[in-house]
């Protein structure tokens, strides 16, 4: 049996973060001692419900909305699906109710670099994807040209999960207002919560998705901010929880854990951004200096602080991940498919990267627990691993 590496540098925080102490402590007693269904009427149920109400207040503060505008979900994917399908189905229902006389907006539009939780619903509804420039930023002119009175919803993420590039949401909102009068704006802020003031940066959005485990909370919990006057069709029908938009017994511990993590984010985000961006810059500058024929994707000045994303020419990500895992660096390339295999990146393809260069991508995502030692370990092992793979590739060519 191969020995485990002595030290481990976890650099995959964009995939999931460690559960923060505060969230763990807040959640621990709930399932054991406060197990009542929060929709019940007795005292324990009311206690349980109060925890959810408290959590809703916290999430409202962090997302810059009223508590009643928070819908708790089972994570980012559900939030995104509820936004896209929920809005488009609602518009379709309206159309049905008013007959074919009234032309209702029905088409969803999103950027080509969205997470699959947005892309797949938009594709399923016959929507439109808008391209990005070489830096991975949405092309606003292209967006404007695809919008019309028929557009039901525009979905543009706040920060991209692969490159970390922050999207110009205020400008997107302006374009939507002028070119798509009947559309609402959705933003997937799943990757942004840990690093950006989502309340301010997504202030123009009507719908905002977040996921707890990307900012120190538990997996399987998320929220969708839904502006008050906005109507959606629910995906899940049943007991009518969450204003009828999300039936199903509340995941009380998860929701409380998410709120605890959000409070930590509110308190420490500014310091973390400062601290982690220094580490990130050391990591990326170090790799660029040590490894020739390396491309940093996007524009670092417009990335979230934890994101480092590079492409190594002549290297296959899968092989690189395997080698660096052996010496304790846990990272990823693009998104992983359900089998665990690395799939080609649709984000890099949209940015115009060749399939070969995109095939050598490496995403190192730092988080609130990342230390200088993690960065040092990555800097000491990645250049050797890349060199080893390139040597073998050139041997193979010579054969």
């Amino acid at each position, binding site marked *: 049996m191969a020995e485990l590496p002595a030290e481990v540098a976890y650099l995959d925080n964009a995939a999931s973060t460690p559960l923060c102490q505060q969230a763990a402590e807040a959640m621990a007693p709930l399932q054991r001692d406060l197990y009542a269904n929060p929709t019940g009427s007795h005292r324990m149920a009311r206690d349980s419900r109060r925890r959810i109400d408290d959590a809703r207040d916290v999430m409202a503060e962090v997302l810059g909305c009223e508590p009643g505008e928070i819908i708790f979900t089972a994570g980012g994917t559900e939030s995104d699906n509820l936004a896209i399908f929920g809005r488009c189905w609602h518009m379709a229902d309206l159309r049905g109710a008013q007959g074919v006389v009234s032309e209702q907006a029905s088409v969803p539009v999103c950027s080509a670099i969205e997470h699959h939780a947005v892309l797949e619903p938009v594709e399923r509804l016959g929507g439109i994807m808008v391209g990005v420039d070489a830096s991975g930023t949405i092309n606003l002119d292209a967006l404007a040209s695809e919008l019309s009175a028929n557009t039901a919803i525009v979905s543009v993420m706040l920060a991209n999960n692969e490159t970390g590039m922050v999207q110009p949401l205020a400008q997107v909102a302006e374009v939507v207002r002028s070119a798509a009068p009947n559309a609402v704006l959705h933003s997937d802020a799943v990757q942004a919560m840990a690093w950006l003031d989502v309340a301010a940066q997504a202030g123009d959005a009507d719908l905002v998705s977040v996921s707890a485990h990307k900012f120190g909370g538990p997996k399987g919990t998320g929220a969708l901010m839904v502006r008050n006057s906005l109507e959606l069709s629910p995906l899940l029908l049943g007991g009518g929880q969450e204003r009828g938009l999300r039936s199903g017994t509340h995941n009380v511990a998860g929701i409380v854990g998410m709120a605890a993590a959000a409070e930590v984010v509110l308190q420490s985000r500014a310091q973390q951004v400062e601290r982690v961006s220094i580490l990130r810059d050391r990591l990326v500058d170090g790799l660029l200096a040590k490894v020739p024929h390396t491309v940093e994707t996007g524009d670092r000045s417009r990335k979230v602080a934890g994101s480092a994303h590079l492409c190594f020419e002549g290297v296959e990500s*899968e*092989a690189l991940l395997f*080698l660096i895992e052996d010496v304790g660096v846990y990272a990823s390339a693009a998104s992983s498919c359900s*089998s*665990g*295999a690395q799939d080609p990146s649709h984000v890099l393809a949209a940015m115009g990267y060749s399939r070969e260069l995109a095939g050598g991508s490496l995403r190192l995502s730092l988080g609130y627990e990342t230390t200088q030692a993690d960065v040092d370990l990555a800097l000491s092992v990645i250049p050797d691993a890349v060199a080893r793979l390139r040597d*073998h590739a050139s041997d193979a060519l010579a054969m």
Partner: protein
Amino acid sequence: MRVLVAMSGGVDSSVAAAVLSEEGHDVVGVTLKLWGGESDTGCCSVSDTEDARRVADRLGVQHHVFNFGDAFDKQVVAPYVQGHSAGLTPNPCIECNRHIKFEKLLMRAEALGFDAVATGHHVRLVAVGSGYRLGRGLDAAKDQSYVLYMLGQQQLSRLLFPIGHFTKAEVRQRAEVLGLRNAAKPDSQDVCFVANRAGGRQGFLERHLGESPGVVVDSQGKMLSKVASVQSVTIGQRRGLNLGGTAEPRYVTDVNLSNATITVGCREDLYTATQPVESVVWADAPVPGVLDVQVSAHGKVALGTLEEAGIVRWQTPQRRVAPGQAVVFYQDDLLVGGALAV
């Protein structure tokens, strides 16, 4: 030794990993994701990957998934379609072994610091002099040496086939004793990227090659029927020719793409004294003289000699081999080389 075991999720490769692990090797399992297309039946489906992962967990070995989909498309699926459009009948499993399992995977294993790659093929690695030969698997009915004819010394010296000494029944028994979840899983039969429910091989080819109707004629040139896609028809084929019932079975004896004509004849018309071949490879040095020659995965052997001009001369006439199929040479149950029928 540090060994990378290619685990398909089937019982053979699972037991292969178990055997190596029991022998004390440092084993890592890998499942190849080869095909993301319309078929989810084959060796890269999610459920098979799950079986492989659960078996690896049970054995206490690490398990990875490599996505070789691009290479598979380029080096197996595209040539398969292209081959058919040129009138060939390529064997995609052989091309997958040639380019994916025993080239790309072997190279990656070496780059990742593995001493060897192991698979669950029913073949034996036999030391001969200073080199290696591939021997038929102990279980004659399961022998898979035919689809591995392309392996040369450089590859054989870095390969392990841990279950070649077992019968299939023994493999299943071991899996059962080890409590592996796939002990009774049926053997895979089909080409992994061709889904049975979508019209099988013929349906796949028709979709990828488009319509190219042809006529079926007898040896006198008399038209008998029409087919939707002339390229999906293979020498020796009996079914799918729209001939209706005939007194004696009729076989495809010739496929002419340039005039979209398929000729059928009786069984005897398929027989020939010589078989032209190309792209000859040898396990080591060329072997002259009379050899056992096998022309399909589990077919019988016939005696023949490979002449210099790329002609196999049969001792007694044999059925013609569809162009693109492998013609494999053995000597005393050891594989010595192979070629492709022309």
